[in-house]
Structures are given as C-alpha cells and as structure tokens.
C-alpha cells in the first residue's frame, strides 16, 4: 500500500491562504490524525487530497500518482474514499440504496445486460449486495437497512456516511469529524469502528477530529494545523506536550 505525501501545499483563495506550505506524509495502515482549531485548514487539506480543490502550489502524491490536478472521481478510483463532516447522503433513499449506489463505479455491465438483468448484470449486482451487506454488518447497521436516511438520528446517519465511504473498498479512508454531534455511546462505537477499520480491514485512516481525548487514544501519528500552517507533528504524547500546540488550543497567557 502506498504512502500519501503532501509536499509544500499552498491553497489560496484570493489573498487568503487556507493552507500555506503544508508538508506531511500519511503512512500506510496507520491512523493519522489532523487536528487544529476551527478554521485551521483541516477540511481544506482533505478537500485537496480528495480532488475537490487543487493546490495553488505544491504537490500531493499517492505512491507515484500525482493527485494535485486529479478530479474527485479519479481520486476515488485510486482507492481513496472520504466520509464528509456534513453528511452527504440521499436522505430520501434507504440506507441500503445509498450504499449500493456508492458502489456504482464497481458495476461493469452494459446497458443491454442491465435491461435483461441476465448473466453479468445479475452476478455483479449480487456481488455488490454481498459486499454492501458485509459493510452493514461491520458498521452494525442491520436494523436500519431498509430505513430512509432522513428518518435516522444524526449519530446513525454519521455511521451510514462512514459506511458509504467504506463500500468503495478504500485503501485510504479520509474521515472528517466522524464523531461530531454524537452522544457518548455512539462515540464509543465509532472509535471501535475506526480502530477495526484500521486493524481488521487494513485500511489507512486519516482522521480529522475535535475530540482530543479520542485523537490521543487511537492515533498513531498526529499533525497539528493552525491558520493554515503546520505547527506540530509527532506521536500523540509528543504533540500534547508541544507548547505551540497548547498555545493554539488554549490561547496565549
């Protein structure tokens, strides 16, 4: 599995630098967290990686693939999936349909096979359904399979959002505040899911999260952003003791 390298990335909106000369590397099969106060540029960075924004300067490399100019669907076809902070699901569709739809790029049959629903078409659909069911089982969503997303609680919708990203079968998963707005019990479940995603699905996880307790507990490596600049990096305990980080979070004395 490939390493993701962000080299000197600057993202400017007019005169404002959302990111300035950020460099970091995401090692395979680890949980790497990106933390920082509001407006630090965390989501902008994820947007650059997933192809929604293109860096003004600098390069993003996934293995030997250059993602700097790639579109979202190209990034996704390289095995990078993302769960959004603001849930991006079809709220009028069921959980199952949302997840099946997320796998549309894995459907490799033509329109004629689809019309007659024979041979390849039905085989592929069955395979997809099986894959989606594994994800439903993994994310413990059995009870919500046939419910429309809009009727579910916020915490469950968040789980569905992560499940949607997982159905792409990613090697690298970008999680943007998966625990925001959850109650304690849902948070505990999500922590367990994130750890299982890393350890049992052998997936690289990039976690953007505000709950520092969670971040310090489960991360292998932490990067800290503030005002678009990288101000700290290291193992969780190193970062926690970094005076710059403390300042960014608690403020100057």
């Amino acid at each position, binding site marked *: 599995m490939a390493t993701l390298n962000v080299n000197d990335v600057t993202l400017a909106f007019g005169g404002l630098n959302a990111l300035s000369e950020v460099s970091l590397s995401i090692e395979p099969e680890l949980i790497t967290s990106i933390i920082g106060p509001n407006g630090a540029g965390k989501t902008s960075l994820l947007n650059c990686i997933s192809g929604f924004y293109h860096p003004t300067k600098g390069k993003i490399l996934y293995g030997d693939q250059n993602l700097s100019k790639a579109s979202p669907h190209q990034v996704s076809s390289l095995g990078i999936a993302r769960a959004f902070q603001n849930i991006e699901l079809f709220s009028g569709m069921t959980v199952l349909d949302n997840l099946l739809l997320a796998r549309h790029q894995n459907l490799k049959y033509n329109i004629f096979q689809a019309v007659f629903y024979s041979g390849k078409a039905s085989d592929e659909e069955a395979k997809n*359904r*099986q894959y989606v*069911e*594994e994800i*439903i*089982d*993994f994310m*413990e969503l*059995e*009870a919500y*399979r*046939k419910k429309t997303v809009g009727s579910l609680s916020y915490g469950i919708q968040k789980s569905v959002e992560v499940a949607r990203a997982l159905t792409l079968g990613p090697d690298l998963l970008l999680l943007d505040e998966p625990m925001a707005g959850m109650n304690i019990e849902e948070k505990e479940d999500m922590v*367990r899911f994130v750890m*299982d995603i890393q*350890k*049992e699905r052998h997936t690289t996880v990039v976690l953007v999260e505000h709950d520092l307790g969670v971040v310090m507990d489960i991360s292998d490596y932490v990067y800290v952003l503030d005002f678009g600049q990288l101000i700290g990096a290291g193992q969780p305990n190193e970062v926690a003791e970094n005076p710059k980080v403390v300042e960014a979070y608690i403020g100057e004395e």
Partner: protein
Amino acid sequence: MEDRDAVLQYTIPQLLRWRVQQSGDKVALREKDFGYWNTLTWKEYYDYVHKTALGLEKIGLKKEDKLALITDNIPEMLIVSIGAQAIGAISAGIYQTSLPDEIADILDYMDVSIVFCDDQEQVDKLVEIRDRIPGVKKVLYEDPRGMRDYRSDDWFMFIDDLYVLGEKARAENPERFDQLIDAGHPDDVCHFCLTSGTTGLPKGAMLTHINYINMGLQLTEVDHLEADDEYVSFLPFAWIGEQMNSFGVALATGITINFPESVETAMEDLKEIGPHFMFGAPRIYETLQSQIWLKIDESYWLNRLFYRYFIKVGEKAASYRMSGKAMPFSLRILAWFGKSLVFLPLINQIGMQRLRRAYTGGAALGPDLFTFYQALGVNLKQIYGQTEITGIAYMHRDGDVHPDTVGIPLPGTECKISEDGEILSCSPSVTKGYYKMPEKTAELLQEGWLRSGDAGYIDESGHLVVIDRLSDVMHNSKGEMFSPMFLENKLKFSPYIKEAVIFGDGREYIATLINIDPIVVGKWAEDRGISFSTFMDLSQRPEIADLINKQVVEFNKNVEKPHFRIRRFAILYKLLDVDDGELTKTGKIRRKFIQEKYEDLYDALYDESVSEKMVEAFFQYQDGQTATVETKLEFFTMEDVK
C-alpha cells in the same frame, strides 16, 4: 401416539439424533446473516453438535463439568449447549446484560470451567475478571471481530478452531460421539437455569433432560404444533422462557427455530418469518400494541374508520371465542368482514398473521391487552409457571380463556393450594433442586410438591388464579387472605380511577384511598357541564363522589370473595407522585409510606363515625414555593358490606 412416548425416553442429544433419523433434511435452524436467511437442516445441526462435543472433550470438558454461555440468540448457543450435554456436562446461560462482577460470582458459584461468548463485548467482561475466575480454563468466542489482541493468548479459542479439533477427533474415532450420548440418561441434569433471586446471588435450578422434553411434549399435547411450524428465538437464552422452547418444544416437535440478525432487528425479522407460535413477557405484547396503534394512526381515514368500527365487533366476537360459546350468525358475518378487511392485513404487518397461538407469562398482563389481541384475532393466552418447573405448568385452553386466570394445569401436572394459600405443583418437569444449596432445595420441594411462593386459589371453573407473591399478601383481622395489589389492579379497570391504595392488614374490613384520573374524569365533568378549577376541586365535587361510588359498588359486585369488598373509601385530593415519594420510580405505590404520610386519613377510614374531615394539603411547587390549602375530605361507607 407412540412417537410421543418414544420421545420421553431420550436425553436431549439422543432426541436430536432421533430427529435426524426421522427428518434429517428438514430445516431445523435458520439464521439471518448479511441480510440473508441461512438454514441448517437437522443433519447439519447434529453434525455441528457432533464436532462441538468432541472438540469440547479434547479441550478438557468432562462429565458433570459446567459450561456457561453468555450470548445473544444465535444457533451456536444451542450447538454448544447440546454439545456439552452430549458429554454429560452441564450447560448454563448467563444474561448478556450481566455486569462483570455478577458474572464472576455466578461462574464461581457454578464451578464453570469453559465459557462461551458470542462477541468481544462479553469476552472483555471476562478479561476484566480473569484473576477472580481461576476455574475457567477456556473462553470460546463466535465472532472474531475485535479479537485480534487476544489471538495469541491460548485462554481464548475461536469456535471454528474447536470445530476443527472436533473433526480431527471424529476422524480418529467415529464411534466416540455415539458412545458419549448413549451414556446419557434422561434423568441426568443437563442445564442450570438461573432464577432471579430478589436478593443476593441468583440460584441455579438443576434441570434434567426429561424436565425439558416433558414440558415441550405436554405443552404441545394441548396446543398441537406441526413440524413445519416456525418459531422465532428472541428471548434471552438465560431465561427459562427461551430454553423451554428451543430445547423442549423444538426437539419434542421438530419445529424450525429462527434466529434474528441482531437484537435490534428481532421485531423486523419476526415480520419476515411470520411464526406460528410465540412466547413473551407482557412487555413485548405492549410494545406490539403500540406499534399497531401507530400503524392505525398513520393510516388514512377510511382505514381508521373501519378499524374503529370493527375493533368493537372484534371485542364482541372475542368474548364468545374466549368462552367457547357459539356466536350469533350476524356477529359471525361481521367478525369475518372485520378480520378480512382490517385485522388480517394489520397483523400481517407485524408478523402475526400465521400466529396460531401467542403465550404470555413472567408477569401479569392487563385484561385490556388480552381482549385487544383476541379482538384482532390473535389467540393470546396466559401461561403460568416458574423456572423450577421448566417454565410452563398452567395454561389457558382454546375456547376457555379467562383474562383474569392463568388457566388449568398441563397434562401430568397436579396443583394444590396449601393451607397458607400458596400454589403447589407437582410434575415430571419439576427441578431436582438448586445447585449446592440443599437448604434452599428442601425449602423449595416439600413432600414432592414444588412451592411457588405465590398466593392463589382455584376458581369455580377450575382455573388457577394467581393473586400475588405470598410475601406481599395481607390478612384481615379474621385471618382471611387478600392481595392489595390484586384488588388495586381490579379497581383500576375503571377508567375513572387512576390509582388506588388498599388497606386492611389486620383490620376488620378493606378500605381504600382513591385517585381519580384527571383526564378521563375531567372530560366526564366537562361533558356534563360540571365546572371545576383544580384537581383538588374536581376530586371533591359531589358528582364525582357519586361516580366513584358507582365504580366501587360495581367492584364489590364483581370480586371473587366477600371479604375482598371495600367498605370505606375516600377520594384523595392530590395525585400520588414520584417526586413526593408516594410512588416508586417504576410507578408502583409505596403503601407503607402512604399509610404513614396520610395517617389521619387512614385512621378516619377505620373510624366509621367520621364522615368528613378538614385536611390541610401542603404543596411544594417546582420553584420551591410552598402553599397550604384547606379542603374538606369526605369518607364514604358502603353500608351493604358486612
């Protein structure tokens, strides 16, 4: 039938083998997994038990050793239990919700050597108490999810590895399994069922193969089941209510057991299976009732109109059906329309369309709920029993359902009422006693009779009526027994009475304080143009006194025994409330506390010279302000009582 007698000579594993010989390719177990229903035939089920037993033997389980299971309902709970029983070991279920401390105590008490857990959640509990349970040699788990850190530790074992061990052992000695199960005797103890002790450590009732099989057989003697019938297993395995079905009934009749995908999906899965019989605590039927009401509420107006009309027809028809009387022709036609137009489609939505019989037990179910289900055409019946008699010992018969009784004994069960009014039973399903508790066992079983700890009597139709826990009943000054809770519940059938507190322990008659229902009585008053300001005002209106008086007269007319009748009552000026300490958190009345708090009222109830009394009511508002209001409280005497 010769089949039935044959069945009684077997142990549970022997009976399983016999089932394979009878109908090996029929589906025995079905489990929903990854969105699909997967099946196991009797042959496959038996094959798993075979592997499991030999595997368990390989890891050191011996005759009379104990194996505990902490698991949701999955096929492995039966496979592992029966696998252990095949060796002559004893299985035992522990509630999944138990805390680690409780689990440690139970494992220690039962001398458990192997524990089976379904997933990481339960395994983690054992890890937490590992140093307190040195007797536990192995922990088996079914779901490998999250177990990566434990894999290197040989205290833990994945169930598939056990199967592999078992397969190897089978290849070495194909005869071994048959030898093992042939050594079993129907009278051997096969399972410990925990009984919920009200205090301290639960007791383990030692149940034998014949206890379970006899129970399953006698139950189906009354209510016949076909081998093609379906059952959904969603009750906790540690509860006798589940074991009696999945060990007793299923093996005695050959029905199919269905396992839900997860605890949360059980009700959805019920809908998909459409079982032919189900058993549950009253809470399940209450939940389903709310679901039905919700469905009706969400439906469009024509449906609601039909429902409202036909539910009345259904209730009328139900009263005939429950008593076994022939319906008038016109009612039969109407009831048929109601069933086809409204009720069948309705109960199909909750998976009850194929249900021939539904049983409720474990606690009392309100008569309203009974009538409700019977009106919909769901044959809901009360059962009564206890863990120590393998669950069911008394049951309603079709066409002879009385909402206030628990029915008549199963075939082979005898019943008598002791001099203290306690219900005693005797049957082949009575336990051998509690594990390692000879004194408690001696208390439980006296001269071959099983004590229930419940007070009851047999009514004129021969039905058993359970009154209350023996420890909660009261006696009047003549020593006649009555149950305050029983009478309160009866009084509360009146929609106008929200709460009632019955007194009379050691007194010459029964007296009660009554809380009117503010909503129903308020509406009643409004409809009649009776004006009132507060609850206190309403409760003391003479019209309301008349209304409640009528309810009490009605109550006195309907009670089973003359000494149950109420002689004096008063209508309380405030609602009993949790915040005032008058009710428990679960809404039960705290009789002693109320008696002390309203001592002057209590005294006045037993002083017939008092017909009214000024009382000072003290109120504390949410913001901490207090107020005292004076009101006149009237006391009423039912002159015809005694």
